[in-house]
């Protein structure tokens, strides 16, 4: 049963991250996902210190606020002439340092340790359960992640057309009257919420990996956004499940194994994808030369 809960948690993380990751990869904002996943830390710690509890709601709120502040600051510096990747780098490292210092200062009050911040405690998920009307209804993490997946799924589903246009041609989207900036912030808000929900169970590093790697894998396999999202989620789930069993076998970090598995799948797609794979392309090139 514990295996089941861990796999379900990891699968939910993989699904919600890789769903949003598709849009990040298409909009060339993959590193913003990285930035947000690091910079929500001070929000979590401050929410924890103020509310004095590990209540997910406050942490979620604090972290979402920090996520939006991050995006806002990055845009602000970018507009004042700093290169985009440098402004990402300045903002997230600064906020992450604030978080790390806060954690170290309040080690006694904060029940978060730094290892857990980076690679999470998915192994503890099955024990942190919720009770409703006296009945044990399963781990908290599963419920919060499920809700987050539902939220981002329904927002993206409702405004699919708008998000699609914003990702491929923001200028045209603005021209036909779609509030591009609003959708940008909505997407970033969803990324922050997802990051926070995943943060506690799987750590910052798995969130970054799951945001980028499955989406990039899917990007190599198809030309359609809908299919890409499907493939991306599938890749995410396969790599989290596979990674879990590898980690049991090796007795190693679960989050680390999951990303490594995702990296393996990406490598496969990079080499053997029928449309964009390096090897197939080389082979086709050679055949073309021969026929010529």
């Amino acid at each position: 049963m514990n295996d089941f809960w861990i796999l379900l948690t990891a699968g939910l993380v993989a699904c919600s991250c890789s769903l949003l990751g598709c849009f990040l990869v298409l909009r060339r904002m993959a590193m913003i996902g990285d930035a947000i996943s690091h910079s929500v830390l001070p929000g979590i710690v401050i929410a924890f210190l103020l509310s004095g509890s590990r209540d997910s709601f406050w942490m979620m709120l604090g972290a979402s606020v920090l996520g939006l502040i991050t995006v806002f600051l990055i845009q602000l510096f970018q507009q004042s002439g700093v290169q985009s990747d440098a402004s990402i780098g300045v903002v997230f490292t600064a906020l992450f340092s604030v978080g790390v210092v806060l954690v170290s200062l309040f080690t006694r009050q904060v029940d978060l340790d730094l290892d857990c911040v980076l690679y999470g405690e998915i192994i503890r998920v099955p024990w942190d359960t919720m009770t409703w009307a006296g009945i044990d209804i399963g781990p908290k993490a599963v419920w919060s992640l499920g809700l987050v997946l539902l939220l981002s799924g329904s927002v993206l589903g409702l405004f699919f057309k708008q998000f699609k246009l914003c990702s491929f041609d923001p200028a045209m989207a603005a021209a036909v009257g779609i509030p591009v900036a609003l959708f940008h912030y909505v997407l970033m808000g969803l990324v922050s919420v997802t990051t926070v929900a995943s943060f506690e169970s799987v750590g910052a590093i798995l969130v970054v990996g799951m945001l980028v790697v499955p989406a990039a894998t899917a990007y190599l396999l198809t030309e359609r956004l809908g299919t890409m999202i499907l493939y991306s989620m599938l890749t995410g789930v396969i790599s989290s499940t596979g990674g879990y069993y590898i980690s049991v076998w090796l007795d190693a970090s679960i989050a680390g194994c999951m990303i490594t598995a995702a990296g393996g799948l990406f490598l496969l797609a990079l080499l053997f994808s029928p449309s964009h794979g390096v090897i197939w392309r080389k082979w086709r090139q050679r055949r073309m030369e021969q026929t010529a």
Partner: protein
Amino acid sequence: MGSIDWLGLLVDPNTQWILLGSILLGLSSGVLGSFAYLRKQSLMGDALAHAALPGVCIAFMLTGSKSIGFFLIGAAAAGLIATFGIGFVTRNTRIKQDSALGIVLSVFFGLGIVLLTQIQHGDSGNQSGLDKFLFGQAASMVHSDVVVMAAVALLLVVACSLLFKEFKLLSFDSGFAKGLGYPVALLDQLLMFLIVVAVVVGIQAVGVVLMSALLITPAVSARYWTEKVGVMVVLSGVFGSISGLIGTVASTAANNLPTGPLSVLAATMLFVVSVIFAPRRGVVSKALLQWSVRKSVLQEKKRAGAVLGTSSVPAQRGEEGQA
């Protein structure tokens, strides 16, 4: 009480070495970072810093020693594989550089964590302190490490000053550099390699997670103050060394706090000061400029109104009429 602490801190020869080491480290990473910034590759440092982790772990697993020399080799190898991987993915597929960076960063770091847990679970002896690599702890460094760190950092600065002209040309117009017959690809790889070396030497003091900040933040701050590369590189180096110094002193004074985040916070403080007070580009000087322009425009308007006698300034018009 505080003053005694500081005095004791500064007299202790070991602390002096550590301070010297972190100043030199900040200097070298600031200098290298400004070239990376001008080449629009700031986040490359982030990816390389994360990618160094598996290299360090493998070096430890193979040799069983925590000597900085082996780590340097392992991390340099991992860093070179990472740069090659990023280049391969962006050249051969339609995946853009940011996604390629994200993939390499997270997969290498994930692999590094797997290896780290393997080391911690295995009984390969003295592995304590390997987890310090994530956030750095300058105070825990032993004398020989500090000497190596200082020496390598100094070497990096010397290499940069010798190759200053080449790197400058590479940063602004690599096509022109190629036309003049410079080995552009080689210089490019060399710059990457120097960044990898800076990251590796910094790992023990600052940690892999935040090493990139020392490469990015001082350079961005320095860019605010000047339009000349030479001045920018020097300023960036100075900012870097000040942040290294403050971070180390604060972390030694308040034990238990990791050095990396404190150095990064010091660098960020300098960045905020630059954003606000820098001449020409800073917020204050921009506001002053705006204010003086607005004032002069208003004055012009007033004068024009006085001359033409438009209805927008009726009081003056009356005076004009009387005159």
